[in-house]
């Protein structure tokens, strides 16, 4: 059979509920993950698209690329894959999640080299549970029908879909290549590992919870409804802590307007926090 042209799809429509931040907009080594993934994918496929939710159409970062918007809301990754196959049903689709900062070119090249077009998909075996990993996989045109059948039965798990389908399963050449980033802790570890071009092999630490004291002043004190609180958090940096508290306490000030103090001294938004630290977010000042 003749080779079906391969298109690339980067899934960026996730709600990032655990991270509470747009994973495509996370930075590693000074570059957005969105850009990193697209740079990796683009040279390996005939065309490359960013999969988005309909409400992300106006996002300028995503609009810099060709986009495919979900046809139906809230289906998760399978909705993005479905929209792509629906838009270009005669192509194979190399689908990638956007929370795979360790993904390397060799892993994608190996997947493409071992692509089995006669099957529904070509995927890696997860190094965690041995199940097919759907979010770094090639979906062949015939998968469209199976996806539509799944959706008709309200089955939205792409991993389950692949697990019961005729899939070419490969072992990962680099077992850490598909480690994903779901929490602030995982992001901090990945950020540290990928922060400098000279960094060696990444290691992911166990999630650490810190006990922190937060003090509030002025407008933030009024919005938080308290002067101080103690909390246990996985936030690694003041910035992650603020994002967490902004949701939790309904703080309206954007971090761009604030400074941060750690242990009674001006601090850095990105410096790691330690257990027992006291953190103060400083609203715009007005002394004198």
């Amino acid at each position, binding site marked *: 059979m003749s080779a079906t042209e391969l298109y690339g799809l980067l899934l960026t429509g996730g709600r990032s509920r655990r991270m*509470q*931040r*747009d994973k495509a*907009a*996370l*930075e590693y080594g000074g570059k*957005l993950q969105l850009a990193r993934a697209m740079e990796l994918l683009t040279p390996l496929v005939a065309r490359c698209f960013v999969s988005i939710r309909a409400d992300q159409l106006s996002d300028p*970062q995503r609009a810099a690329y060709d986009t495919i918007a979900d046809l139906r809301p809230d289906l998760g990754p399978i909705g993005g894959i479905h929209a792509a196959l629906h838009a270009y049903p005669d192509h194979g689709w190399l689908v990638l999640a956007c929370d795979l900062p360790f993904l390397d070119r060799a892993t994608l090249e190996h997947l493409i080299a071992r692509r089995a077009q006669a099957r529904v998909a070509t995927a890696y075996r997860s190094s965690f549970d041995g199940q097919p990993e759907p979010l770094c996989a090639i979906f062949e045109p015939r998968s469209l029908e199976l996806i539509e059948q799944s959706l008709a039965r309200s089955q939205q798990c792409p991993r389950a879909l692949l697990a019961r389908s005729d899939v070419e399963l490969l072992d990962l050449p680099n077992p850490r290549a598909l480690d994903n980033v779901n929490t602030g802790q995982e992001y901090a570890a990945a950020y540290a590992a990928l922060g400098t071009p000279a960094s060696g092999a990444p290691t992911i630490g166990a999630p650490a919870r810190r006990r922190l004291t937060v*003090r509030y*002043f*002025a*407008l933030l*004190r009024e919005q938080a409804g308290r002067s101080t609180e103690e909390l246990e958090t996985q936030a690694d*940096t003041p*910035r992650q802590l603020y*994002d967490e508290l*902004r949701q939790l306490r309904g703080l*309206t*000030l*954007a*971090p*761009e*307007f*604030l*400074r*941060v*103090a750690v242990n*009674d*001294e*001006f601090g*850095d*938004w*990105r410096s790691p926090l330690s257990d027992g630290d006291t953190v*103060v977010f*400083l*609203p*715009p*000042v*007005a*002394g*004198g």
Partner: protein
Amino acid sequence: MQRFSLHDSSLQPEQLRRQLQDPTCGGYAAFEGWVRDYNDGRSVLRLEYEAFAPLAAREGERILIEAQHRYGVVRAACAHRTGQLAIGELAVWVGVSAPHRGEAFDACRYIIDQVKHRLPIWKKEYYQDGDSGWVNCERCAAAATPALGHAAHAAHEHSSG
């Protein structure tokens, strides 16, 4: 007495200036900031200052040392109010003593400008129309979008009046 100090009751300039007396100094300059009854076109009834005291004290001390190095003044001090203030009350006091008047004026100006921009002190204004607001904060709160920002940003300079 601390050279930089926070006070929750009336400032006493006569007491504060005593620490600046020095036989090598021929000039003394002071600045007093008073509570004004209007701001940004609104009628102000009273004020409230809130401070993050430990950091305000550190940063205040740094500002005074900078002024001394920059302008060669001999002594410098600053006192700032916290709590509720009425119209006309003294909110902030700066004093410096130097061999000559020029550096005394310059250092005094430097200190009050830095104090307004750098100290973790916040001012809430209570207006005649019953409204109230934190100066420099409300417009930032209004500008804030409900969505979280994209990539992490470096802390910006504070805007301050």
